[in-house]
């Protein structure tokens, strides 16, 4: 930049001297030299710098690419990740190989991302809560009945209601798949350390605990509806710690 200014001053002086010798008048010579230097500098300055789009030091060839789609990165189309994270090129249907301009998905706000992360953490937390510190989480559980004779009678009676019976069957299937959050969610039974129960949206309540003899196995130890819930819980508290 300094070099450029020095050349400009020298050029101005040369032009001034030249015009002064020619015209012998001071003011017109200065004006003519000023016009001359302006025209000269406009010829030397790059077009992009005149428009103010980029500075004069930006290289014409970009040093980095915003679209890494041909790379084998986690964001590339060859990635097997099917997560729903924000800002992943390749998520949008228009992002086909060969497109020059990448079609990025709509961005997600930081707040929304934080909320989503919190929600995932919460779900994991609940899963951990239900699997005890000693228990490993499984995708599938072996579920079998270990209902006492007293509670079997309760189970038999409450299953006379078709809806309750259906909901208990559904809860059992979901328990096998480890879907503890189905219905109104699973809870630890107050006053015990090992007994949990799942609750259907209607009356069904399914009490269970993790098998001490077999890993990945769950024992169903009681079934009830809401009116019989307290009675069944009282019985379970007497028999399980």
């Amino acid at each position, binding site marked *: 930049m300094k070099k450029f200014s020095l050349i400009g001053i020298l050029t101005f002086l040369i032009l001034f001297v030249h015009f002064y010798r020619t015209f012998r008048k001071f003011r017109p010579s200065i004006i003519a030299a000023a016009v001359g230097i302006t025209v000269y500098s406009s010829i030397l300055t790059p077009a992009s710098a005149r428009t103010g789009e980029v500075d004069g030091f930006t290289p014409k060839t970009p040093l980095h690419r915003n679209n890494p789609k041909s790379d084998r990165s986690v964001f590339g189309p060859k990635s097997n990740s099917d997560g729903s994270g924000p800002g992943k090129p390749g998520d949008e249907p228009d992002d086909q190989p060969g497109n020059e301009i990448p079609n990025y998905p709509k961005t997600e706000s930081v707040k929304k991302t934080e909320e989503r992360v919190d929600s995932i953490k919460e779900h994991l937390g609940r899963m951990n809560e239900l699997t005890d510190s000693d228990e490993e989480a499984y995708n599938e559980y072996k579920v079998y009945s270990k209902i006492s004779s007293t509670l079997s009678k309760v189970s038999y009676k409450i299953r006379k209601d078709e809806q309750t019976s259906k909901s208990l069957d559904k809860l059992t299937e979901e328990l096998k798949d480890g879907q503890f959050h189905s219905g109104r*969610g699973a809870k630890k039974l107050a006053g015990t350390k090992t007994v949990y129960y799942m609750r259907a949206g209607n009356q069904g309540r399914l009490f269970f605990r993790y098998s001490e003899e077999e890993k990945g196995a769950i024992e169903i130890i009681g079934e009830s509806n809401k009116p019989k819930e307290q009675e069944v819980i009282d019985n379970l508290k007497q028999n399980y710690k």
Partner: protein
Amino acid sequence: MKVESINFLSPIEDIDDIFDDNMDVSVNLENGLNYVVIVGTPKNLLRLMENEKSNFLSPGDPIVVVKKMTKEVVEEAIQAYADDDAHYLKFYAAELDIKTLNVLKDRYIARDKFLDDLLEKGESINIENYALIDFNIHNL
């Protein structure tokens, strides 16, 4: 009706987020009967729908909705539901099979018809002493 005792059927101290949870609450009334109701927060209703991947809460028993799941707030709500002869506590905790629901509707229709008859005759419509459970809706 007086509430004798309230038992939280899951440990209330285990709740991670008092604004997002639900639990079964067992209530003993002075009549000696026990009622179990679900108490939950508005945020938890949304989460249940998210869990079900549904735009609505699946059909089920009603939930007593509270601002937050603390012992004090839940007990306050239960006391309110126990007012007026525990009408709404009994309603929220009721086990209503389809036959019972049909009988209740038929009983309402019979009661309404009975009142119309009394009004037509210009008689007193104080019907509290009438037995209105023994009826046949097809004879109305």
